């Protein structure tokens, strides 16, 4: 599961993504969303 957190009122690619493993945070990405 990954949650993507962003500036709600003005979406501009700022994000904190959180990977969860076994109910705990296993990795945190802070930055801009980069298109695949």
């Amino acid at each position: 599961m990954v949650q993507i957190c962003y500036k709600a009122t003005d979406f501009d690619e700022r994000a904190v993504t959180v990977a969860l493993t076994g109910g705990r945070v296993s990795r945190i990405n802070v930055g801009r969303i980069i298109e695949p």
Partner: protein
Amino acid sequence: MSVIPKASFSLVVTPLLLTIAAAATAQQPAPLVTRDLRVSGVSIDDDSGSVRQRLGSPVSVDSSGWHYRDLEIFLKSGKVAILSITGPSRATRGGLRVGDFAVRARTLYRPCYADSLSWFRSVTKPPTSTSAPSLSR
């Protein structure tokens, strides 16, 4: 008939309600801003020289990025694009760490989050839509 005088009741209950309201307000995190995109003194858009000045030489460097203890840094055009925290010695500006329970991530970021699927749907809408992704679950 109450044994508590009305004035005393107000003196006790009013501060209690104000304290509860203040605590509830204090727990509402703000939406992400630029200063939130900072880990261990390194910010998004910092150049590679600034990163070395702040963190020193990386433990290793490969095509995916620079690797420090519990932190990977991905550069794009010579500037920091993503700070990836991989271990508990680093934290977000909001205080989230690897190893924290998932509920803490939700508590810290809940007002401005969407799960990956709803985010994917929102960014794949036709280009006529300019609204922010829905926050409802």
